[in-house]
């Protein structure tokens, strides 16, 4: 843990060369990971992460130094190395630290670090037992993870606080084979929850059935034809399209330095009228939720786009200075090894008014992407690429047959304007989002949506 007198001394040291803001972030984290292949436990790995980082600002410049040595001397040394990057005379006197209690909105019943690994393995075996009886499934790959992260944050504005984040997640991948070809299907639910997540949200048997169904469906699917066509993207992980094609472009990380196609577009129309998008860290027990962000700011619910109009960017402390705009509780990092920056939390397109059956019936010929794979985007140009995990060719408004190997490519700004249907049933799905402040849990989400035309890659 971080002691108040240590934190105060470290902050004072960090400001000695002219910095105008200093912060210390200390983390102690226990991660547990179990992996199982075809019913056999392959590895049980526990890892204790322990370290701290000191950050100093001088105007728009940010300096970050981190270490595993969290003794008073180790932390003071960190502060000195950070201060040495700034060339000036001390002028900013840090405020006295005042303890702030963080209200916890994510109730945890059974902390996973207190649960024996054997119980975790038993849950994985429930899923494997189902896979064993699924036709054409030759292999199952199941993983389990939990993490209890305790953080202490103090800064020169007088903030001194702590928070605990608890995560539990399981993933089931099924491999279907016909002897010469393999296809995979997978599902990976999780939450900011303890082991009680298995009481309701994670059903290992249902996960196994779903993964097997996807893999089998894709095994029998021909390659997707390439071309430009209308595309319907289903709810849940389909929201990765918004996350990649638009979400990253709304992070101050890209906007503050002019590397986003969304720069200077606040108040302007950036999406079709039917699109409202939200980034919400306040939803209890959701994978991307928080109590406070990694700069100690209480988390928020932020409307990004309302009826097609751009309303907000996601902004962290350093970029708030560069943009001359307020912070939004969006400062996040994987851990002490990273300086925080603006990141997404639970980001989704809000429910609309359209009927799912009508959305497909009126699309003519095109692609129905039922399950999306991962994707990536280049924020400067908004160019993106998504794999379609489970896709179907639609002919004359009717689902014809499954197709594999499809990918969706385009530019975020163009696609947002081409969304012409938004369904009613918004669902979220869990992912790990990678960016310059590391890999963090985020939710993507949306109802079924339709894009009037999109480039589909295939063969």
């Amino acid at each position, binding site marked *: 843990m971080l002691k108040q007198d240590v934190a105060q001394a470290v902050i004072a040291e960090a400001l000695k060369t002219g910095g105008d803001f200093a912060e210390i972030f200390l983390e102690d984290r226990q991660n547990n990971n*179990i992996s199982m292949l075809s019913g*056999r*436990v*392959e*590895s*049980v*790995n*526990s*890892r*204790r*992460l322990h*370290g701290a980082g000191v950050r100093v600002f001088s105007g*728009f*410049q*940010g*300096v*970050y130094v*981190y*270490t*595993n*040595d969290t003794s008073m001397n180790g932390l003071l040394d960190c502060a000195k*190395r950070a201060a040495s*990057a700034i060339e000036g005379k001390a002028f900013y006197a840090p405020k006295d630290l005042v303890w702030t209690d963080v209200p916890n909105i994510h109730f945890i019943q059974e902390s996973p670090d207190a649960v024996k*690994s*054997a119980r975790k*393995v038993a849950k994985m075996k429930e899923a494997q037992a189902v896979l064993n009886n699924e036709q054409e499934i030759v*292999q199952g790959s199941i993983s389990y993870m939990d993490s209890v992260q305790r953080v202490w944050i103090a800064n020169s504005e007088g903030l001194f606080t702590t928070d605990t984040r608890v995560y539990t997640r399981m993933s089931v991948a099924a491999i279907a084979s016909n002897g010469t*070809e*393999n*296809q995979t299907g997978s599902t990976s639910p999780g939450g900011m929850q303890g082991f009680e997540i298995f009481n309701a949200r994670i059903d290992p048997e249902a996960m196994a059935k779903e993964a097997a169904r996807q893999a089998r469906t894709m095994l029998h699917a021909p390659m997707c034809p*390439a*071309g430009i066509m209308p595309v319907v993207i289903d709810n849940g992980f389909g929201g990765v399209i918004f996350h990649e094609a638009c979400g990253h472009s709304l992070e101050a990380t890209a906007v503050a*330095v*002019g*590397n986003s*196609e969304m720069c200077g577009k606040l108040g302007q129309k950036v999406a079709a009228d039917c699109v409202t998008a939200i980034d919400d860290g306040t939803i209890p027990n959701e994978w991307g939720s928080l109590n406070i962000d990694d700069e100690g700011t209480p988390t928020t619910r932020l409307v990004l786009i309302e009826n097609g109009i751009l309303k907000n960017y996601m902004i962290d402390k350093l970029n708030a200075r560069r943009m001359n705009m307020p912070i939004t509780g969006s400062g996040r990092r994987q851990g002490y*090894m990273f*300086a925080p920056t603006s990141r997404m939390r639970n980001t989704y397109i809000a429910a609309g008014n359209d009927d799912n059956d009508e959305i497909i019936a009126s699309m003519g010929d095109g692609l129905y992407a039922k399950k999306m794979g*991962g*994707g*990536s985007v*280049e924020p*400067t*140009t908004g*160019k*993106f*690429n*998504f*794999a379609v995990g489970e896709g179907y060719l639609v002919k004359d408004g009717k689902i014809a047959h499954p197709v*594999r*190997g499809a*990918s969706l*490519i*385009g530019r975020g700004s163009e696609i947002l304007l081409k969304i012409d249907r938004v369904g009613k049933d918004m669902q979220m799905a869990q992912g790990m989002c990678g960016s*310059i402040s590391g890999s963090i849990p985020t939710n993507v989400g949306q109802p079924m949506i339709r894009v009037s035309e999109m*480039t*589909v*890659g*295939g*063969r």
Partner: protein
Amino acid sequence: MTVDQFIQALLDEAQKEGILAAEVYLSSSDSFRAMCVKGQISNYTVHATRGLSLRGLYNGKMGYAATEAFDEEAVGQLVQAVKESAELTEDEDVQEIYQGDGEYPHVYNYNPALDQVAEQKKLQLIQDIEKKALALDERVTALNYNMISTSSGETRIVNRVVGADGKAHGLDLCYRDNMAVCYISATAKEGERVSTGSAFRVSRNFDEIDADQIAREAVEEALFMLRAAPVPSGAYRAIIDAKCMPDLLGVFAGVFSAESAQKGLSLLAGKEGEIIASEAVTLMDDPLLPGGLASQPFDAEGVATRTKAVIEKGKLTTLLHNLKTAKKAGVKTTGNAAKSGYAGAVNVSPSNFYLSPGEKSKEELLSQMGDGLVITEVSGLHAGANPISGDFSLIAQGYTVKDGKKDQPVEQITVAGNFYQLLKNVRAVGSDLTFPGSAIGSPSVDVGEISVAGK
């Protein structure tokens, strides 16, 4: 507690708790990183970190645990966690803690001079790069990425195996390595059109990173790509550029691992000795490559490393092995045990992994192709490539080739194919072997025909 005291305390406690073969893997590093955007230094990050993992054989099974806190409390916690891990692990494969090789190769992977480069000099480099890039052409609006990083680290393996006679034997191996990495990406604008171009340098000699050259390379690509447009969908003759081929090879590198093969995750299982690629293809795994990013004298199990061809003139000669997979297959380990970070379990991974260069220059490859495409960049690899089936469908850019010469820039296309098929289709491998920022390298490769989705 000093690090040495902590290691001895761990091995003592493990022995006391019945773990008769135990090993500590310690990784420590010191690194520096900064970016320069609009004249401002940003993302200035320095760290001094260390992490340790303990693994050990308990009742014949290997257990793992790791920590970054090196205190007395951690000693007992770690040993108990290793026991719990070993008790639950159902891996039937025989595992061992290695007793060592008599001799270890000498490898050039550390340049002491690099550790002495002042931070001010590193900052000056990226400031210079930005100035030079912006001055090259008025259409260059910014460097959207402009980063220098240096790192210097040490890897150490200490183990103890108690024999049937009650005597303990052990290894204590160590190597240092360091490197500097510079990566930039330039943005160009003309009217409504925006494009980017990038350049990368990896070196152990800081003065080799030339601000002029790297700025010019990124800017030239950005400007060239301003006019880029998709080509019509169809099948094209194609060359995959040396800048890009390593990315593709990297995604599918896992299929050459015996671990993947034994788990049924590689279609190369049991294919040793068979022809799996065209005669033009020779694929090397070379941990002794001087200055290579993955050069190292011993692998993650303490086995001395060696150079070998994985594919020789189209024939699969060997998969990559660690001790466990080698024992299972009844062969000798290839010294390819690896860990993803200090805390990871021992797996299998290539070292410096590259397609051997051929005779022809890239210009000759283009001229031999006549009309077609050169692919210079693919993205979306983690989503658009399936390492199990070999299928890939990737967003790509590059340029068209007309009458054997570079012609028009191309972007917003998808190239699709199958990695295994692509290996067989290779018509020629160029002489321009490049390692564009990782330990995986390749020359430009003429891959025959490739399927393209465009306009």
